[in-house]
């Protein structure tokens, strides 16, 4: 600091930063993309959906309080439990995880924001729109009523209303948003850490969030594909699940639970991650067994993909399948358990401070451990033959999810509330809420184990008196109302006016992790300057850290160009590699969400014209968004980010975050495609002859021609990248335009196969599956063509040059995945019939 008045210089820097990161006011507030704003909206909305689904739960418990009750009709009860389960899973648990991550991750990582702020905002708006559409339906007696698992044929052939369509399209829409959020979190954790925060120094929350987001990428696509199949069967009669047309209801169950079981851990892991942040603070010592906890998160994440059939033990599968899934379901208890022993060891070796967050942590432990133990019980197929689809499972899953997710999230509320509002929540109300919730929960759900074992199945709107359920059900109802009272106390504590309450001190819990650097109340810039980190608990171990951060002594203390910036670092050792410019406030995300939502919502009512128009509008908005907001050429090549470090302002290929975003998105996309291929081979296993004889098509010629054309187009795209790099403008344009032309022909040839051979998709599962594979691939090719033309245009106007070639790198990456899709599709539809 050489200036005459370092104080003035610091002040001017801070002013410029504030100006750049300012959250807009007035009606433009809703154009904000800052993680503080979007994260808060996201949390508030998902908590609202939690309350809504909770009220539905109380309605159900009231209905079941006494036998033969007539409060809810059978049909309304069906809608109630369907909406309760679906909302809790899709509109509370998963969004709450992503919401908390959007809000807290940048703080924990000392980043200014997540890498794709507008994508977070887009995800949020999709979620709000889809959520309101779904929840609203129950007020019009139009809600889905097939259970949150939506098993066909009940939901395909036996429920003609729009309820099932609302579920299938509404949730697909929300799942796409959830995948967008997951891409954001993965890239954020891997590439947006502060310098020096090497992989073994990451806060445990970041590990859990990374694993859970990666799981979302592989778990959600099967459900999206399942929903696509079911919706196509409902709308157009393609018989994927109808045995009369060669379909099989079990295919849905595989796809659904391939999503459904990992989903439970997607909910559980980020919640237990909050516990992993809270425990060291109140034990007053670093966590013990950091490596074991990472093992636990990764191990659980993987094993959870080998559990899906344990929801299908009673479907008559062979014993070997039941045994294998019993084995995996038992094994998953090991990594799940070890993290709790790490927490206990930390508490044991520390000096435990009592606090409301810790109270909820202990409550969570008591409840979750029991849920985990009953989980091991139902993991064994023989016991599950009895327990499956009874109130025993209802008790088990609520112990696992309320203990494993709701209690830790509330602990997180009490712990992190000061970061959001600058004020503390009430200790007194917190304790009251805890005891009401804890006692109410156990009174409500412990008896359900016995209710189930005495023979009460799930999803019944009433039961006859005298079978031994009456007293148990009444006790359960009383308990859930006590639980509800506890939640009401919590809500009051969250929303009560606190203008006269003094602000919380900075780092009120004396925690050691980076998010607590934040001033009270927080500033929109996230952190004044991005520090060099060399400890898991920098606030405990790095002297003067807070002071130096506030004085702007670290990286990016200024915004001299008036642009939002954050650091990008290497994935393992967190060496700074790039100064990433971030987009500011914009209504584009909202517009994109509205137009995308229009497609799904109009589609629900089968209003195809507005739906297609809306899709076209969405495409236009997204193209405009990409054109104006991504891969901008900076005004200079590099800049001084502070501490004498110069970093580039532009990167392409694997060095850029956009490339990683594309790569991760395409992994999810490929997973969806693999699920579709799985459907094809699943039909092969259940049919004696598949394809049915005589071989109906699509033959070899057209798919072969398509493959040749598309391989050419892929090659042209790769060449275009090379020629662009060598600044051969004509070659680049020619390759891209030629590639687009050949790809269009290839896509047409692909579709020609089933058309020419007269495959009728409504006639049998075989043509239906072939058609869907073809359409899936053709859609990808169409998007690929748009991308080729986009690159051409970018080069023409000079947004893309030989040095600034992020666009074509990402497009080539897209084409790598697309050509893989093409090759597999052709091998399956044209090659497999030759073998079979």
């Amino acid at each position: 600091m050489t200036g005459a008045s370092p104080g003035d210089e610091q002040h001017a820097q801070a002013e410029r930063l504030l100006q750049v990161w300012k959250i807009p006011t007035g009606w433009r507030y809703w154009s904000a993309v800052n993680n503080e704003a979007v994260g808060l909206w996201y949390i508030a909305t998902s908590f609202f959906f939690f309350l809504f689904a909770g009220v539905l739960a109380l309605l159900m418990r009231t209905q079941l309080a006494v036998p033969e009750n007539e409060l809810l009709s059978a049909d309304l009860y069906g809608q109630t439990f369907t909406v309760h389960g679906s909302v809790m899973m899709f509109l509370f648990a998963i969004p709450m995880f992503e919401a908390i991550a959007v809000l807290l991750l940048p703080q924990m990582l000392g980043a200014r924001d997540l890498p794709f702020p507008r994508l977070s905002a887009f995800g949020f708006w999709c979620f709000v729109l889809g959520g309101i559409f779904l929840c609203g339906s129950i007020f019009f007696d139009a809600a889905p009523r097939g259970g949150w698992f939506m098993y066909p044929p009940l939901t395909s052939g036996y429920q003609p209303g729009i309820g099932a369509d609302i579920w299938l399209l509404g949730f697909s829409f929300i799942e796409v948003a959830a995948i967008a959020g997951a891409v954001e979190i993965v890239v954020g954790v891997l590439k947006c850490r502060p310098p020096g925060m090497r992989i073994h120094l990451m806060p445990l929350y970041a590990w859990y969030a990374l694993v859970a987001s990666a799981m979302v990428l592989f778990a959600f696509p099967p459900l999206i594909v399942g929903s696509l199949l079911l919706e196509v069967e409902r709308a157009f009669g393609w018989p994927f699940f109808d045995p009369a047309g060669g379909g099989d209801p079990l295919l849905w169950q595989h796809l659904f639970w391939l999503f459904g079981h990992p989903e439970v851990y997607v909910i559980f892991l980020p919640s237990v991650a909050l516990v992993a942040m809270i425990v060291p603070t109140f034990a007053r010592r670093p966590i013990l067994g950091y490596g074991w906890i990472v093992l636990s998160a990764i191990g659980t994440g993987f094993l959870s993909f080998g559990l899906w059939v344990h929801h299908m033990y009673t479907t008559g599968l062979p014993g070997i399948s039941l045994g294998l899934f019993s084995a995996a379901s038992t094994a998953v208890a090991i990594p799940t358990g070890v993290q709790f022993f790490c927490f206990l060891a930390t508490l044991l070796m520390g000096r435990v401070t009592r606090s409301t967050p810790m109270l909820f942590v202990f409550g969570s432990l008591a409840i979750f451990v029991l849920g985990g133990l009953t989980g091991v019980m139902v993991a064994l197929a023989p016991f599950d033959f009895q327990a499956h689809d009874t109130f025993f499972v209802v008790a088990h899953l609520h112990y696992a999810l309320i203990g494993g997710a709701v209690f830790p999230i509330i602990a997180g509320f009490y712990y992190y509330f000061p970061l959001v509002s600058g004020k503390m929540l009430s200790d007194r109300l917190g304790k009251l809420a805890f005891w009401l919730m804890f006692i109410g929960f156990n009174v409500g759900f412990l008896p359900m184990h016995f209710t189930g074992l005495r023979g009460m199945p799930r999803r019944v709107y009433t039961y006859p008196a005298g079978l031994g359920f009456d007293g148990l059900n009444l006790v359960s109802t009383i308990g859930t109302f006590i639980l509800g009272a506890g939640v009401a106390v919590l809500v009051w504590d969250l929303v009560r006016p606190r203008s006269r309450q003094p602000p919380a001190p900075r780092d009120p819990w004396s925690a050691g992790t980076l998010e607590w650097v934040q001033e009270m109340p927080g500033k929109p810039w996230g952190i004044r300057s991005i520090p060099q980190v060399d400890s898991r608990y920098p606030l405990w171990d790095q002297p003067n850290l807070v002071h130096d951060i506030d004085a702007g002594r670290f990286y990016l203390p200024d915004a001299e160009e008036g642009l939002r910036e954050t650091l990008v670092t290497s994935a393992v050792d967190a060496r700074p590699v790039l100064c990433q410019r971030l987009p500011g406030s914009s209504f584009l995300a909202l517009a994109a969400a509205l137009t995308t939502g229009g497609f799904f919502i109009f589609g629900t009512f089968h209003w195809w014209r507005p739906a297609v128009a809306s899709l076209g509008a969405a495409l236009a908005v997204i193209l405009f968004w990409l054109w104006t907001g991504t891969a901008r050429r900076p005004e200079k090549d590099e800049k001084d980010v502070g501490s004498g470090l110069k970093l580039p302002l532009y990167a392409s290929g694997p060095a850029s975050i956009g490339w990683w975003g594309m790569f991760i998105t395409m992994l999810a996309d490929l997973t969806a495609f693999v699920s579709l291929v799985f459907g094809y081979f699943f039909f092969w296993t259940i049919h004696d002859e598949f394809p049915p004889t005589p071989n109906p098509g699509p033959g070899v010629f057209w798919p072969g021609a398509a493959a040749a054309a598309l391989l050419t187009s892929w090659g042209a795209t790769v060449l275009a990248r090379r020629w662009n790099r060598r600044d051969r403008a004509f070659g680049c344009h020619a390759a891209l335009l030629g590639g687009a032309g050949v790809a269009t022909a290839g896509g047409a040839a692909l579709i020609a196969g089933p058309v020419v051979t007269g495959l009728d998709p409504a006639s049998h599962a075989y043509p239906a599956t072939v058609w869907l594979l073809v359409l899936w691939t053709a859609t990808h090719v169409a998007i690929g063509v748009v991308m080729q033309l986009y690159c051409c245009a970018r080069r023409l106007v000079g947004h893309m040059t030989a040095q600034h070639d992020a666009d074509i790198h990402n497009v080539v990456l897209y084409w790598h995945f697309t050509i893989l899709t093409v090759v597999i599709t052709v091998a399956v539809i044209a090659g497999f019939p030759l073998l079979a």
Partner: protein
Amino acid sequence: MGNNVNRGWAAIGALVAGTSALVGCSGPQSTLDPAGRGAARIAELFWGMTAGAVAIWAAMIGLALYTVARRRTEPSPRAPALLIVGGGVVLPIVVLTGLLAWGLAALPPLLAASDSDRTIVVTGEQFWWRVRYLVPGGEAVELANELRLPVGEAVELQLESRDVIHSFWVPALGGKVDMIPGRRTRLTLEPTRTGVFRGVCAEYCGTSHARMAFAVVVSDEQEFARWLAQQAEPARPATEPLAVRGQELFVRSGCGACHTVRGTVADGVIAPNLTHVGGRLSVGAGLLASEPDGFQHWIAAPERLKPGSAMPSFAMLPADDLQALAAYLEGLE
């Protein structure tokens, strides 16, 4: 907090004790009051696992409370390693390996075929059960919502569905198996004592899923044989004047379009076979007692009693017609 914690745990203890007292295990639909070999095996597994689970839970919660209550004593520096590796890794592996082996060993007997050559096909339909005893070389004996089994004999049931997915479950006899359209699943039941047990549909199958129950009557071999022979007989024509009028009404109202009464013109196949309906334990799949009142209620208001049922309402019939119909059906023993 310490005091509160203790009070909290005392409350939980009282709750556990209270619930156990409240429930007991018996009941016509209880998995813990087994009357079949499969159910008994699973109940044994349950009790073993429950004992283990309670012990593990208590140990973990005890440990958690100790970390809070600990005052002066410094734990040994080796405690964390012991806790994480011993408690978090070694112990679970030992316990889970044993448990998995136990569970896997229990699986084959539960899935095994029976030696019996008796074939019973049960079909789930929204919202009732079609039960057929296949007689080699003869006509199948069909009834609805009631299954009779001889004690001590393992019988394999063939399970099917005609519409949506149902799940066949008699908790007292054994586990459940789903009935899936387009597939045929199997379940072997071996009752070990006589009695009447209640079965239900366990998979959500639509609006009146809760109203899809049936009775299982387990009797000794002779009585079972006598019952089966009697079921194979055609219906006896009505003799009492009221019942005779009921029989005419039955034909006139078109009941035979859906229902069969063997030995009469009624030969519909989409609804329950009523040939010996008067001898069954319930009307409407476990809904009402098989008495004249029960029949009358059912015929007059099926939609109210069982929403979504395919049975049309006959509320437009005058009361004495309903009485006559009920008398006829009640007489079909």
